[in-house]
């Protein structure tokens, strides 16, 4: 975040940020009035428009190398709310916009709202919620005020929960209820934190907070509660109880959104909190503790994923494990002796983005397999690679990205993290990173080998899979592979708006 002074004002292109947030809101309101039959058409127009806005913001920031900000209603913080876009936010924003757009393409087959003569339930709910998720994510990326971020988080949760139980089966309802209640528990803890912080500093603006924050009991309590609340919403091990049933039970397109996009929202807030709102507050012990949680997520999630019998559950557990990687950046970035800060953040964000693309592709592939076979038992996948070669290719590419083989984005992210482990002499995290990669490769290999193997009985496809769905999955998978190429330049954008040396260490 840029150093906010009393003079902080709306920057030249700041209005773009408002546009990015308003577009989905307009879409939601329009869908309510025009009815579900138009929801898809509205989304088909607004989601690409959102992507365009995201790309423009990205280019502006990349070229000018300065953050954008917009002061809503001309009321400056602490009284008002500022929207800010720095490198982290635009990178995430563009990635999420692309993923959401491709998921939209994929979802057309399942949630085509134009086939029925009247409004139908699932399409209406899906498209509106998809737009809501896109808006909420943008809000989370740009929000400069901790309370606005709370509202955005709730928006995200309320949009995500109905997607889990879109098909209304009992077990998905149960999963949705668990998800909702646990997420509410998480956000209420976050809210306690905002209350305490406001009580201590009289502002919730992130930049003002970073200038005023100091080490005292209420602040530490607030930071603790907010962090743990966000852990619960991100499903960091051992608070992941809601994730596997919810992500595995939802329809494929919804699983893709939930796994690729939604969990990144609360993760992003954790990053904002520790690196922007309260720089320097993270003690070494606490950062190691977060790292231990991440490491246990990687090991435990991967091992349990290895033992799953259903493909979608396997992918869901893989998400549990991959979330662990995201939190390894905290011990690496919070080492006060080394100023590795920037690269580690870049690595962590890249991991988040490459996981988003790869995991969305894998869930889509699993959904297509489910649609074609009528089940997703891994032991009976035989022959599917021959029936749906493009789908399984997409799955494999996504798997490569998760394993971290070059030139995928996963490789680049792991490279950066590994470099940081060595630079900060914390080799134990390096072991976890590479062990996680090996375990990941084991389950990717198991699935692929089953899929390429001969069928136990003659394969009967229950439904033809539309080509464009396969293409959407493959597109995302290719994206995750080509993400490694961002090292050629765009990766710099992640550093925009970061202070050269984190001032907090100098205290």
């Amino acid at each position, binding site marked *: 975040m840029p150093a906010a002074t009393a003079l902080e004002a709306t920057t030249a292109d700041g209005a773009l940020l408002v546009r990015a947030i308003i577009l989905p809101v307009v879409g939601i309101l329009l869908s309510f009035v025009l009815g579900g039959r138009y929801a898809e058409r509205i989304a088909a127009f607004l989601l690409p428009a959102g992507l365009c806005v995201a790309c423009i913001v990205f280019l502006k920031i990349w070229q000018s190398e300065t953050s954008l900000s917009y002061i809503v209603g001309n009321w400056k913080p602490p009284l008002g709310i500022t929207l800010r876009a720095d490198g982290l936010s635009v990178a995430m924003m563009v990635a999420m916009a692309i993923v959401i757009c491709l998921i939209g393409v994929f979802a057309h087959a399942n949630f085509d709202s134009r086939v029925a003569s009247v409004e139908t339930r699932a399409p209406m709910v899906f498209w509106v919620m998809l737009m809501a998720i896109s808006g909420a994510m943008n809000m989370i990326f740009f929000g400069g005020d901790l309370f606005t971020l709370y509202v955005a988080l709730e928006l995200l949760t309320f949009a995500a929960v109905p997607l889990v139980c879109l098909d209304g089966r009992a077990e998905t309802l149960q999963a949705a209820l668990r998800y909702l209640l646990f997420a509410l528990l998480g956000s209420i803890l976050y809210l306690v934190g905002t209350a305490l912080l406001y009580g201590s500093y009289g502002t919730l603006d992130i930049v003002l907070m970073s200038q005023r924050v100091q080490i005292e009991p209420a602040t530490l309590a607030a930071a603790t509660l907010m*962090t743990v609340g966000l852990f619960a919403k991100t499903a960091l091990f051992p608070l*992941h109880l809601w994730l596997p049933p919810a992500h595995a039970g939802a329809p494929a397109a919804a699983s893709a959104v939930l796994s690729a996009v939604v969990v990144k929202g609360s993760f992003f807030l954790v990053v904002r909190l520790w690196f922007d709102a309260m720089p320097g507050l993270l*003690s070494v012990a606490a950062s190691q503790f977060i790292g231990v949680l991440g490491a246990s997520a990687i090991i435990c999630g991967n091992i349990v994923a*290895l033992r799953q019998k259903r493909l979608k559950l396997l992918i869901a557990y893989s998400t549990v494990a991959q979330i662990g990687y995201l939190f390894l950046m905290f011990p690496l970035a919070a080492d006060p002796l080394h100023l590795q800060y920037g690269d580690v953040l870049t690595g962590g964000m890249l991991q988040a983005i490459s996981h988003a693309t790869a995991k969305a592709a894998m869930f889509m592939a699993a959904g297509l397999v489910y649609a074609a076979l009528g089940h997703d038992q891994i032991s009976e996948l035989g022959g599917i690679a021959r029936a749906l070669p493009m789908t399984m290719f997409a799955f494999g590419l996504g798997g490569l990205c998760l394993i971290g083989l070059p030139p995928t984005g996963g490789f680049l992210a792991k490279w950066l993290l590994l*470099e940081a482990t060595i630079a900060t002499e914390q080799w134990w995290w390096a072991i976890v990173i590479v062990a996680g990669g090996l375990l990941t490769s084991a389950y990717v*290999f198991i699935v692929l080998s089953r899929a390429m193997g001969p069928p136990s009985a003659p394969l009967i496809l229950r439904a033809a899979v539309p080509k464009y769905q396969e293409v959407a999955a493959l597109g995302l998978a290719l994206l995750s592979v080509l993400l490694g190429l961002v090292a*050629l330049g765009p990766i710099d954008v992640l550093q925009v708006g970061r202070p050269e040396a984190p001032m907090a260490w100098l205290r």
Partner: protein
Amino acid sequence: MIEAYPLLAFALLFPLGMLLACLWPMALLRMPSYLAFAPIPAFVAVLLVSDDSPLVVGPARLHLTFALDLPGALLLGVAALLWIMAGAYASPYLQGRPNRGRFAVCWLTALTGCIGVFIAADMVGFYLFLAMLTLGACGLIIQHETADAWRAGALYIGLGLLAETLLLIAFVLLAMDIPGDGLLIGDAAAALPTSPHRDLIIGLLIAGFGMKAGLVPFHVWVPRAYAAAPAPAAAVLSGAAVKASILGMIRFLPLDTALPYAGTLLAAAGLFAALYGVVIGMTQRRPKVVLAYSSVSQMGFIVAVIGMGMIAGDGRAALAAIFYSANHVLVKGALFLSVGVIAATGRRYLLPILLPVAIIAVGLGGLPLTGGALAKIVVDGPLGDGAANTVATLSAVGTTLLMLQFVRGLVTTASTDYEATAAPSLFWPWLSTAAASLIVPWALFLAVPEGMLPNPLAPELLWKALFPVLLGAILAVVLWRWVRRLPHIPEGDIVVVLDSCVKIAPAWGRTIEQAEGTLRQWHVAGISLLALTLALGVALLAQ
């Protein structure tokens, strides 16, 4: 002369383009017939490139660099030759078999990876193409889709990825030591001797490349993989693909600096593997498995040469090792290809084919006038006169023995049809490879400036080369009388230990799964949440 970079780029882009063309179903259908053409640009590049100006891809800060240095060029040349022959051999071999398309894709992936590794000059590129090579090779191994093939593939990719993981850590460590932003392998090797993590890096490199090269005790994948792979695939894997690890050792390890401890370790491991492969190989019956163990032995020997070079800080050992490797590329390739040819040949025409096979095979043990003998002469210098040389002689005896064992096993696999002959399209590639394996080492040997190496036709050298072969032959005759008494050792010997570990693993997995299930209960998760809150709060207080 011709500038390097268009040729290098073409050498890499041509197979890559063929690979991408496979996305188009029509192209995929025909691709198996054109596999032989893919490595030709690489071969041409080796012949034409004379300078070592690098090919740089990408902007200034983070880029891939490719260059053709002498070791890389030598290996790439012979490897490309083998890939061409084996590609030509694969085309008829695949006729009428299932999964032709997948074979072509994996073949091209492995080929691209192989070429890329030989010409990569920076670590990211090296790693990238090594990974490609591993994935493609894995696909080739599981080609037949039998249970054995799957097991071999799993073992191969598991160890391969483990090796790559170790290498990744080593590379990251090396990258930290390179001054500036560059990731060139040359810089890394130069910075290694003064690195604070020197021993760790060397250990990781040796372990990583050792796994890829099949060094004991990481050799377990070798017999299974080569036995499972189709003959042309086994030929390129054992011939060309594993040499990537040799090249890696030469590129990364600082051979110009004397590192006695690491060198001794490497040499000891290599020599042990050289003998171990022979001993275990003797107990095997299937020709491909015998060849695989011979590969273990030969690779061990090459590693030992590199190790001896490290002890002395003698950079010339690298070239010696490369020469030995180059010979091995063609010989092993020809031998694996002969397995397919013999299988298609009846008793009547067996002898004319078996004879060259036997000559090349025994050549590996150092039969005078063959490439093997030349290779032995080349490595004689680096090995010195000490224990290593004795072991080398022992190994030569053993290799002869092993190769005779191979030929003996090969006879039993001949076609049951007395009149059968191998198809010409199968026969000629094999014959060319066999011929190349005899000619190319001579060509290379003669290219070395006179006076650097002794005259291979000198009588004492001829005798020195012949005597282990004769000893081996005598031993073979003696041994075959006792063959029933030889113990039966499963293919991959100590892999059974691994297998039993794999059997224990599910129990552990179940325990972890159960624990995870407990954690997923609502109230347990709630209590964890509270406990986390308190723990994090306390940890934060500890400022």
